[in-house]
């Protein structure tokens, strides 16, 4: 069943050289599955996520059709949209510590996220926040809940953001580089937690990541972006056999555990320009 459908999405910004399409006619459908989006820096991954949540502010402009659970997102009023955000669609932002409210403790912020979803007595609320922090592998949840965003480490900030976005049990989660600051062991646990929601609650997931091995291992399907467009899409298990030179270029640039190359191959950007 289709959860989200994106048709001919265009996101543009005015620049000194006129209006530029940073997302340029992107179309895809998402069911209750895990879709990975990969691509170079600046290829339009975050803008795609933000456009779905209607978070692109003027002078940025969004065109195209977006429908979520059969509802046309482009025609929703700001008020309905606000009700949808954080409750039915959540987005884990690429810059967690910066996206959190700097003057509110992280515990209070997670509580607020939960309140959108259900009303609970204060004590139960606290307990739920605590459980959630533990689920994202924060060892001392009571201490961390009392900290302000600038007092948590980079990886703790990411996990706080993840806790906040998962606690209302959304139907669609857009996760923009959610685990880039986490070591592999914590990363594995956090991804399993997200996976539980996909499996047990039928959540759809868009995972934006530059970690190609991770996306290949974790997702069902992969969409490769370049310059605002989709260059290729494949089953996650087939990523290593990707055919597009751009995707192959990305794969070759990944450093290895037993690295013997003195220089990593970089992409020749002229090779596929215009494709």
């Amino acid at each position, binding site marked *: 069943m289709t959860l989200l459908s994106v048709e001919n999405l265009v996101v543009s*910004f005015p620049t000194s050289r006129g209006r530029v399409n940073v997302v340029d006619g992107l179309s895809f459908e998402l069911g209750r599955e895990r879709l990975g989006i990969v691509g170079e820096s600046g290829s339009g991954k975050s803008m795609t996520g933000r456009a779905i949540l209607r978070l692109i502010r003027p002078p940025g402009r969004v065109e195209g059709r977006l429908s979520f659970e059969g509802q046309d997102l482009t025609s929703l009023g700001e008020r309905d949209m606000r009700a949808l955000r954080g409750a039915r669609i959540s987005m884990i932002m690429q810059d967690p510590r910066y996206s959190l409210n700097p003057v509110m403790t992280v515990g209070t912020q997670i509580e607020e996220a939960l309140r959108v979803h259900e009303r609970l007595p204060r004590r139960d609320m606290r307990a739920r926040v605590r459980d959630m922090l533990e689920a994202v592998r924060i060892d001392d949840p009571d201490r961390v809940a009392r900290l302000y965003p600038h007092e948590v480490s980079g990886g703790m900030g990411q996990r706080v953001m993840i806790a906040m976005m998962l606690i209302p049990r959304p139907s669609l989660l857009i996760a923009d580089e959610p685990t880039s600051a986490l070591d592999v062991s*914590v990363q594995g646990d956090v991804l399993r937690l997200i996976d539980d929601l996909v499996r047990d609650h039928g959540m759809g997931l868009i995972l934006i990541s530059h970690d190609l091995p991770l996306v290949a291992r974790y997702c069902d399907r992969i969409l490769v972006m370049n310059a605002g467009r989709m260059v290729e899409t494949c089953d996650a298990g087939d990523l290593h056999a990707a055919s597009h030179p751009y995707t192959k270029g990305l794969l070759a640039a990944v450093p290895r555990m037993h690295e013997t190359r003195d220089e990593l191959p970089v992409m020749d950007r002229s090779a596929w320009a215009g494709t």
Partner: protein
Amino acid sequence: MGRHMTAISLSHVDIAYDGQRVVHDVSFEVAAGESFALVGESGSGKSTVLKAIAGLAPEWTGQIEVLGQPGSHRPDRTLARHCQMVFQDPYGSLHPRKTVDAVLSEPLTIHRIGGQDARVEQALADVGLDRRFRFRYPHQLSGGQRQRVAIARALMLEPQVMLLDEPTSALDVSVQAEILNLLKRLRRERGLTYLMVTHNLPVVSFLCERMAVMNKGRIVEIAPATALHDGAFRDPYTQKLYAASGGD
């Protein structure tokens, strides 16, 4: 400051925030021209160690030396001339109302260095950003573009020592490869010293000679990067980290 055999040295360093100690008894030395990695659990104190060296985490005791000069308990202009830090999240570290051009020119103005225009162009080219980006504000850049501006800013003063906190974790693999190649080239050409925090062990394998592993505020092991080839680690936490990273 002339050339020193040891670029960074920490001896029995404890670091606290508001009286609460988070880093315990850390000691290590980084030779001039060496690349040294700091890896380990999230929240174990890696960023805190870098901040203490840069004079940004004031509550430390023990001994810190950078290029033969004693460490500072506050930001220090002479130190900044030779030792620059790239922060873990470029969002917080770039001023929202300053263009890329202003961010990159500022250190040159403060330290009265001429030829600004050419230097800014060169620094942008070094990190793979073309002219279009020069007069943009941080909110007009993608995550990876912002990170590259932060790296370019640290390079402006041509420091001898760089403290790099997850410098490539916000970058896609192709840009990461360019930045890692650049760091390697700068080290070869200018003899730079790097102390780099990363959770990406293959990155350590590519760029570094040695690595210290932190867990719960302490260094549990210092090993040569070649241990990543065969997994010859002795600490159980390190072994776990290595296995989880796909090493065998």
